[in-house]
């Protein structure tokens, strides 16, 4: 008998998928508090890593993945996460992912359906993502807009004058554009996907989080959910970051948790910047009920 099963005996993975800065980390903090009866240390989240983790990949393949090309890594990703579920006794794995739901060179989705239970897709008004993303990258608003509008936008890609290094602890993540990302995760999916609007997570909190908890098949009372929400409230996350730092923060950025609000774009973006976002993402914005600003009004 083999000591480790190679086939998937159970669908276990719940993908926490999003474009960056759309509530993913907040939700993981909430889950940590929910599953840990209120305990939350932002540097010890109880979720199960990120899809793009080099450590998870190297451990599953016994490869030194710095020798692999990114296209080779993406060929193996479905097998890696199918293998990962066989390594755990617990029946749910929460895996964060910023990659778009795309195909690898073999024409197979990089995210395997076989071990997948379901996915939550977090979406946030792109006009608010811009400023938060710029803060995250310690870059400018215009840099963020450019990346969000780029059809093949990529996160954590290492550019050097000659070729690319390949030593980050995360692989490059192809995100497509902001709209492309959202559409990739919500069109013709082979597993159930629930879309959560960041704005609903803020303003219709208990209802929105309760729906997500039920969707994942986790049995918790409204009181337990409320307690977890209280323990993972934005002010507390920000306070913990201030006190102890946050290891998921980009090194050059000042803080990971910035304002956590919605609608801040009104004071952050110029009419030209707003137009660049709206022109590129109007269809998906309308689909998820984000009001299209009347550019004639704002000066």
């Amino acid at each position, binding site marked *: 008998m083999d*000591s480790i099963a190679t086939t998937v005996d159970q669908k276990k993975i719940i993908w926490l998928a999003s474009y960056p800065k759309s509530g993913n980390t907040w939700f993981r903090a909430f889950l940590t508090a929910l599953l840990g009866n209120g305990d939350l240390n932002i540097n010890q989240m109880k979720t199960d890593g990120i899809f793009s983790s080099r450590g998870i990949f*190297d451990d599953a393949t016994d490869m*030194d993945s710095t*020798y692999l090309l990114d296209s*080779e890594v993406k060929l193996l990703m479905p097998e890696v996460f199918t293998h990962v579920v066989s390594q755990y006794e617990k029946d749910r794995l929460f895996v964060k992912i910023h990659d778009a739901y795309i195909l690898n060179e073999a024409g197979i989705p990089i995210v395997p359906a076989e071990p997948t239970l379901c996915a939550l897709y977090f979406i946030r008004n792109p006009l608010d993502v811009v400023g938060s993303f710029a803060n995250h990258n310690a870059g400018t608003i215009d840099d963020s807009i450019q990346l969000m509008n780029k059809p093949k936008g990529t996160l954590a890609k290492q550019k050097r004058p*000659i070729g690319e290094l*390949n030593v980050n602890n995360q692989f490059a993540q192809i995100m497509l554009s902001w709209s492309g990302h959202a559409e990739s995760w919500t069109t013709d999916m082979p597993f159930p996907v629930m879309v959560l609007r960041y704005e609903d997570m803020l303003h219709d909190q208990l209802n929105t989080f309760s729906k997500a908890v039920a969707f994942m098949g986790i049995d918790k009372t409204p009181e337990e959910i409320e307690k977890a929400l209280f323990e993972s409230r934005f002010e507390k996350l920000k306070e913990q970051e201030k006190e102890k730092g946050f290891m998921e923060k980009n*090194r050059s950025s000042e803080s990971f948790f910035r304002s956590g609000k919605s609608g801040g774009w009104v004071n952050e973006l110029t009419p030209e910047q707003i137009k660049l976002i709206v022109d590129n993402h109007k269809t998906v914005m309308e689909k998820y009920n984000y009001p299209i600003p009347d550019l004639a009004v704002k000066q």
Partner: protein
Amino acid sequence: MFKYWGFGLQIISEIEFPEFLPAEFEKPDLTISMGNVPETLTGDDTIHKVRVSISPTEYLQKVINVAHYYVANGTEIRIEPQPGADEKSIRLFLLSNAMAAILHQRNTIPLHASAVYHQDGVVLFCGHSGAGKSTIVTALQAKGYKVFSDDVCVLKPAEDNENLIVSVPSYPMMKLWVDSFAKTGITMAGEDDRLRPNLAKYARFYHDEYEIIPRPIKQVFMLDTNSLEQQAGIKKMASIESFSALQRNTYRHVQMNAMKKRDFHFNIVSKLTAAVPVYRISRPQHVNTVNEVIALIESNLPSNG
């Protein structure tokens, strides 16, 4: 057939390895051949992972689009190249994974470390790929230090003293990421020197000044890129901390666990940490701190005399 010395072993190979040191001998320790490999490994003690199976005596790895490698009993590597694979890639994955399996099977420890000579022994620089091992060794070489080994050093007890842990070099080739050339001021490698097509890491041979004699370890520096400061810092590590850091830097620690070598490793690494000071050098990832790190290393080397 080609005859070489590499990783402390006498190697006879069906394919040419410009990386190894040519050697003459009667009896090989390791034979590298081409041929069909088993489709799978069986047996109760076999661990199956993604395209790799590991037992205490056998190792089978299928590197996508490159080759399948079968490694047995510390004495044999068989290669089954995949259609369209280039020779450099076939050699690169043999020199990393299959060789690591050979070394684990032979009860030696491949440590992820580069090293330079110091006094009557060597000083090791450990760290994951990208931590700066090869860059530091290249910078020290430019200052007159002699390179002992790059990327991997093999640890084993000395033949005449089982309590003394010595290091054996791997093979006379350094592997440098593209940015290391500018950081250390050496001439950029050519296109032919790429380790494999499209990979921004390059080979730099040093066969002419290479020695194969095992050397005692005088000191260990752990390199990491986790510093939140803008400059590099150094700290002496407590022995428990240095023990686990060394274990983490075992090359292919997945193999160590799957081959049930933890007790053996515990023994060797304990002897090493009991006898040798270990320092941690932390630097920020995206800042060129080569000169700072070299200064920290030099001011913390065991003093001469």
